[in-house]
């Protein structure tokens, strides 16, 4: 199995070094603002005096922001805590974007990253509609826009080197490695620190498993993450419908042909 990330919420201090590293490394894929790529603010002017619901709105993923760290004020047993949540592509084991793309512009590489091929993309934006995590974003102001999202620094991961964000993290909140090993590491942390972690690895089973895993000491729901996701990969739903619809279409076509022959024959007999 391929590489993945493990994001440990208890370790993230919200410094956003990962975002800076991500932009630096991937600058050739990002559309610069008028003053250049480094002019993009790291947190889009995140103002914590605003209601919590609006924070995500202030620092959303965009065509030039593949990675965001969202600050969340959470209440754990009466204690008010700051928590910082990574938001980027989950690199699903069976990605919906790959299944819904009719030009196969997305693909899951054996190394783990889900990457996008701009030369195949038709620009229908079905991937943006289909993604259960609402990750792919669009370069709306380009004449021929591309879909844009984290590519797990594919040039690095394919030779086994950690992506930019993971190497920049000063607290090791984001770990890079083999997904299976990361899962056992996550289980080990949950087991060895009783009472600290919520007993759930987010991304282990969500939509059939993702390469980005989270462990946390507060409920994932309070962190603004989608918790009622199906455990079945989304492509299984669409494939099932494809299978039986094609069968139905064949039977329907045969029935129509039979009906046509029958009514013609009836007509011929009536004329005799």
């Amino acid at each position, binding site marked *: 199995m391929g590489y993945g990330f493990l994001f440990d919420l208890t370790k993230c201090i919200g410094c956003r070094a990962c975002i800076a590293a991500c932009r630096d490394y991937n600058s050739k894929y990002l559309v610069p603002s008028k003053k250049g790529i480094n002019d993009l603010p790291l947190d889009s002017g995140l103002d914590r005096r605003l209601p919590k619901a609006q924070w995500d709105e202030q620092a959303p993923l965009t065509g030039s922001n593949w990675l965001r760290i969202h600050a969340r004020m959470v209440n754990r047993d009466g204690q008010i805590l700051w928590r910082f949540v990574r938001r980027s592509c989950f690199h699903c084991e069976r990605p919906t974007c790959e299944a819904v793309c009719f030009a*196969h*512009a997305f693909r899951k590489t054996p190394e783990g990253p889900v990457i996008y091929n701009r030369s195949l*993309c038709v620009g229908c934006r079905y991937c943006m*509609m289909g993604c259960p995590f609402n990750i792919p974003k669009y370069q709306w102001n380009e004449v021929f826009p591309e879909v844009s999202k984290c590519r797990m620094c594919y040039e690095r991961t394919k030779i086994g080197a950690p992506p930019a964000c993971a190497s920049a993290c000063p607290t090791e909140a984001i770990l890079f490695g083999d997904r299976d090993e990361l899962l056992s590491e996550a289980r080990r942390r949950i087991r060895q620190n009783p009472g600290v972690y919520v007993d759930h690895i987010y991304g282990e089973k969500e939509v059939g498993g993702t390469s980005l895993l989270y462990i946390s000491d507060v409920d994932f729901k309070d962190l603004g993450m989608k918790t009622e996701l*199906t455990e079945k990969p989304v492509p299984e739903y*669409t494939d099932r419908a494809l299978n039986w619809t094609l069968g139905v279409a064949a039977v329907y076509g045969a029935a*129509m042909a039979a009906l046509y022959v029958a009514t013609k024959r009836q007509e011929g007999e009536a004329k005799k």
Partner: protein
Amino acid sequence: MAKANSGMFYYWEDYYTEYDAIFGGKWYFRMSWYRVVGLALIGLMLFSMAYRLIRGLGPATNLNDHWPWGLWIAFDDLCGIALAAGGFFTVFVAHILNLKPYKYIARASLITAWFGYIVVSLGVLMDLGRWYNFWRPFVSWGYHSWLFVVLLCVVAYQGVMTFQFGHIFFERVNAPRLKEIFDKILPVIFVAGLVIALLHQSALGNLYIAMVDRQHPLWWSMLIGVFFFLSAVFVAPAMCVIEGILASKAYKTDFRHEVPLLEPLLKVSLCVMVVYLIVRLIDLAARGHFLAIFEGSVPSGLFLLEIFLGIIVPIILIARRKTRKSVPGMVTAAALIVGGVMLNRMNVVFTSMYQDMGGSYFPHAIEFSISIGLVTLCIMAYCFFVENFKVMPEEHEHHHEEHHAEEHGGQLELQPAHH
């Protein structure tokens, strides 16, 4: 089939000489103030299209990262294709069930459906960000995608249409060998067209299966493709009624002549609507979301509106023989069905998704102008066609007395009028 063709062969000569006599061998487009406005709207659309192609989607539309799909997908694509279902439905009635009186309706709706498809393709092309890449899926097959099925259906339908025109083309162009081949494959073309229609209608619904974690449970269903297909079937007779009444108003003909033809079609609509309603409610109950109908939220309200005004009221109206056979009753029921299906498509794209999508979206003026312009283009093309080719009923009414008229109606999909 062979019999019908040989019959047509004999009468063909006088048929098209008469044709030239009626139209005087000239293209004809009557102008009126409505049409001036129509042409202005088409002009505005061309400007909007140029603006969108030159400046890109961002400046030309209000689509955003929250709402990647908007008015064009909902109105042009989903509504447009559903309302073009008259094409395949009347082909089924006229050619598969072989009911002769419907053959002229089949011709007219086939033509509107064809215009509809061309206009939809044009609209979708505007919506594609990298439209010059539209051919890529044929090379790089994303065959797990329902959009792939949609694309194949659109292209295959154009292919079917070409074959139907080929059939007519070689009737005028003297190539008996080729004509024979085209005549022989015509039944295959009819069946292929019906299968494509089934796949296309259901595929548009099945696009939303992938939104399993995003769409409101009142609309998300593994059976959404079945619902899209069934609603396309029951909206088809309603569209025939609406098209019929509009055409009779525009061309000052008596709609009452068409009532005995359309009334049985509406009965078919009634049966399909009953099946649709039952399956939809059972599906809701089986998924455990039946009570969501009554949760009192915006989606539940619009769901109730869609089911009540678009399904239940028309069922009652059509079930009563008296309203079904009266022109106002028929038109009211048809208008409700069409409105209900359009509301359903809008609900699938907007109402069922807004809770998950976040953000806000209201179409840009350019989006409106392209959508309105495409509809106007469709209407104008239809008018042009009706005025220059034989599709209107009364031209056939007097042919009906003649024993060979039915063959003509059945075999000629489109007449090239001039040399």
